[in-house]
């Protein structure tokens, strides 16, 4: 069952890569229409299947000739560069995802345990609150707070903007982990609540198992299936946020360069070619979709390990 699912996902991944490359290679020639004195009036673009196919052909020919994606500067190949920036991005994304995932479960369990006690305001209500306000706001507010804190002499000097500072790496991990953490906490809380009152819990209690053990060994294990089905969502979200976080903290990772390759020009001249740097973009597309693919596969495997029901089916 797991193997079949993984095979299924792999197939899907390959199909999406092909589709994405097709989109990426859409011909981008623009025909300009000019008025008096070469003034810009309008521009149109035409699409022919032949052009589109040609783009593909050129791409593969290029790879063949250059034995890769070509070089960027002094002997550093483009593929090496893509890989280097990608590693840099993963340095913040992967810890953030794991942090968000496990702390999120911890927060969800905490929310559940505290729900009828004093201090329940810090429970599910805070989770809902942090889920409802955009984390962009939290990121900007945190950055400002750190800077103001330093000015007021409350905080040591923390670099919030840069590409190689360890403090930026740590901050980025925190920024990226915010949303996944509260998202998972919310899911955990509601799946624990859905489990309550089930027969197996009563059985466990009647055998004298402590409530701590019941929660961690029995209930959580059943909740994992539900929680793990959301890994795709949080990975997608973290990658989406990676663009913002890298941009706001000047962290030069893959998302930043990827954005640079596909972004629209700030100005153009009449007759300008509108092609984007398709080759690096293609490299990044494959790597980013691979991250999502791996997240899907990992969640499949974890689900299989956790739940015997999922294995059999």
């Amino acid at each position: 069952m797991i193997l079949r699912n993984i095979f299924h996902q792999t197939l899907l991944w390959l199909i999406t890569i092909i589709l994405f490359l097709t989109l990426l290679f859409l011909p981008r020639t623009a025909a300009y229409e000019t008025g008096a004195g070469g003034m810009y009036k309008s521009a149109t673009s035409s699409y022919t299947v032949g052009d589109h196919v040609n783009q593909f052909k050129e791409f593969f020919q290029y790879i063949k000739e250059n034995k890769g994606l070509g070089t960027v500067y002094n002997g550093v190949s483009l593929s090496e560069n893509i890989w280097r920036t990608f590693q840099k991005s993963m340095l913040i994304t992967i810890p953030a995802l794991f942090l968000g995932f496990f702390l999120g479960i911890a927060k969800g369990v905490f929310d559940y345990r505290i729900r009828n006690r004093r201090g329940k305001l810090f429970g599910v209500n805070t989770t809902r609150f942090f889920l409802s306000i955009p984390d962009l706001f939290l990121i900007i507010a945190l950055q400002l707070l750190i800077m103001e804190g330093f000015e007021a002499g409350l905080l040591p000097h923390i670099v919030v903007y840069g590409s190689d500072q360890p403090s930026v790496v740590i901050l980025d991990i925190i920024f990226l982990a915010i949303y996944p953490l509260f998202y998972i906490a919310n899911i955990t809380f509601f799946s624990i609540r859905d489990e309550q009152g089930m027969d197996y819990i009563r059985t466990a209690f009647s055998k004298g198992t402590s409530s701590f053990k019941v929660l961690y060994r029995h209930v959580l294990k059943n909740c994992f299936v539900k929680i793990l089905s959301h890994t795709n969502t949080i990975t997608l979200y973290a990658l989406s946020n990676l663009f913002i976080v890298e941009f706001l903290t000047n962290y030069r990772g893959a998302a930043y360069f990827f954005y640079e390759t596909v972004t629209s020009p700030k100005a153009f001249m009449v007759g300008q070619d509108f092609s984007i740097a398709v080759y690096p973009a293609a490299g990044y597309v494959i790597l980013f979709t691979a991250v999502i693919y791996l997240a899907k596969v990992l969640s499949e495997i974890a689900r299989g390990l956790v739940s015997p029901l999922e294995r059999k089916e």
Partner: protein
Amino acid sequence: MKNWKLWISSLFLLVLLIVVFAGPSLPFVDNQLKQHGVIKTETGSFILPPIPPREGFPLGSNHKGVDVLSLIIMGAKETLTIVILVVVIRYVLAIPLAIGGFYSKLLEKILQGWQQLFSFMPPIFFVTFFVTLPLIFFSKERGLWVILVIAMLETGRVAEIILQNLKETKKRPYIEAGIVAGGTPLRLFKNYYMPVVIPHLIILIVNDIGRVLFLLAQLGVVHVYVTHTFITNQWGAYEVVNTSLAWPTMFEKITADIFSYQWIPFSVIGAIAVTIYTFNLFADGLQKFFENKYRTYRADL
């Protein structure tokens, strides 16, 4: 007052509506968006724009000396129009697709393919990528194109959620009762499925409004705006400038502003955060309202 979320968010929504429709005529709003030059203070010193928050500029001014509070209030209408348009288009496509998918296997496959394809890449990438296509970049109806792209990106996801909801409903015993009682498919759909699905749909739509606004804010940070125009500069090139008042456009210089003119990005993100929070709170409140109304609330054991 039991459902405080619904009450508070309704109040916020009312304020938002007032801002949208009556905002430009409020006394403290400069609806001409006048650009202020140098300002002389009481002590005789001069302040150049961007002017920090002070009398006459409750949230400061932007780089051109325009009052930020007025900008936010004047931009509310455009921002919300874009968001609502995206959501309307998305659901106009998604609802028939979901219902079709419920009855036809082929449509279900299309729907799942759509959802799977776009679940492999963050939406922010797709939008950045599509808007640079010359077809959209030079189009006179660029705004509509961008709105369409944003709407289509998550149509699959939304349709999938609606479809799942329909399928969950199908498993419930009262549907069988309806079949046994001799209900025609149309009657079942109208009287058995719809009453359950519509409350979910309303909550989903309200939540989506928040999501779209958030995506627009993210796009604003990376300089992707819904509309733009071209102006010539002295070198004969055409600069791409945005003339819209929508909130995300105020993030234009965010990476520089955050160090010296914090009030600009902070006011805008504040306005966006409050709006998104309002919609999310409203969705929560609605959920509770429907749970109480249809008694689907799960008692805490």
